[in-house]
């Protein structure tokens, strides 16, 4: 039963991403800034740091599945989020071995991961001909505001989930080392 908590929360964030833009004041949406909520990704970063052990890759698997769901539900272009999320979470999973899991490391890995993921998504969309934005504009109008907003979300998640994630990881991953 407890194993269903993680997919449940990820699904909740996936669903609320679509409603999120309704919550922000319209001036932010109509303006130049392109703010993209990557809440699923922020939660995946926490999972990668605190839930997964060194030899388990649940976060990558979840990144793959929920990236694909985002593709289906919100964009219709399959594979973009799936690939970017899974790859970047894999990189984060590798990086966390070198660092100790605390709030600063989470922020650092959150920033690095989100930048990588959003840039990867943007590159794929540019190649596919969906997005067309000069790089300077992209960094200024999309990447920076997106980073800020999602970091706020990460800091909001951190106190709620860190202890729980560690506990769930201890309970579930030591009993059987599958995957």
């Amino acid at each position, binding site marked *: 039963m407890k194993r269903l908590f993680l997919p449940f929360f990820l699904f909740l964030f996936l669903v609320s991403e679509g409603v999120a833009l309704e919550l922000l004041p319209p001036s932010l949406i109509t303006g130049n800034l*392109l703010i993209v909520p990557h809440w699923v990704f922020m939660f995946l970063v926490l999972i990668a740091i605190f839930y997964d052990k060194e030899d388990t890759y649940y976060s990558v698997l979840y990144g793959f599945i929920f990236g694909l769901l985002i593709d289906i539900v919100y964009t*219709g272009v399959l594979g*973009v989020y799936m690939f970017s999320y899974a790859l970047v979470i894999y990189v984060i999973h590798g990086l966390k071995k070198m660092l100790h899991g605390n709030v600063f490391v989470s922020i650092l890995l959150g920033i690095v991961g989100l930048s990588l993921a959003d840039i990867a998504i943007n590159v*794929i969309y540019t190649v596919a001909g969906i997005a067309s934005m000069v790089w300077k504009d992209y960094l200024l109008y999309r990447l920076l505001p997106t980073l800020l907003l999602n970091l706020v979300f990460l800091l909001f998640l951190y106190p709620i989930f860190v202890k729980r994630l560690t506990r769930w990881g201890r309970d579930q991953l030591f009993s059987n080392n599958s995957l």
Partner: protein
Amino acid sequence: MAFFRNKKLFIILIGVIVLVALIGFSLKERSNLTTAEQFVNDTVGWAQHIIYAPVEFVSDIFTNIDDFRDTYKENQILKEKLSQYKGLIYEVQEIKEENKELRNLLDLKESESLRDYEPIQATVMSRSPERWIEQVTINKGKQDGVKANMAVITADGMVGKVQTPSQFTSTVKLLTGFDQFNRISATISREKGEGKNIVGMIEGFDEESNSLLFRIIEKSDKDVKEGELVFSSGMGGVFPAGLPIGTVKETAPDKYGLTKTALIEPAADMYEINQVMVVDRSIATDEKTEDKEEE
């Protein structure tokens, strides 16, 4: 062979291939989603429905407070307008009856008018968080009669078209996301003395000026004035005629000086959409009539 023993690199490589294949698959023109996609869309749509209710409740409270402030002023304006409308209603009735009689004279059946449509009421549930893709989800799907490429309107005017319907939800492509693959045949109507109607195509959206590009075709009159209303012309075969699209902001000649492009400010607000209507054109589309003729 050492390369293939490197499992990680191998998996990433396969991932890239799958990615390219999937993007290619989803970018080609398709109006029907696979069953799996429809299932996911409906499930998420159902969950959004639950989450959206309290969110809308809270945001409604704030809009209500805003509304109260302007109520008095609005009331005055509305009263004035109401008296104007009374005259208009009478006029419209007259014109409708006259139209009917004239149609009867010409032996045109009422149901074959390009203007007629049946609205399907729907509520917007979510907007795509990926900002490159201008897409919203509505809570009506195939089960309610929504089909691909139907026009979607609000009270103010056109907002987009149905991109892919699932069983209980559908995704709508907004006008702001239109490109050269999603054209609308549009027109600016003129009274008889002033020359011919101006016809052309809405060919896309310009991000910089926040306006739609209306390419006026060569042979029609080119002196478009600012503030003129642009309507759908019903000639494209999908949308009914007479849906307001927007007003002319300015005109500019195109690269070769042969045609003129007008910048159109959309009539409907693309960012605060809540209630929409999916427009089901009453007249059969071209394909269907062709089929019948073949039989």
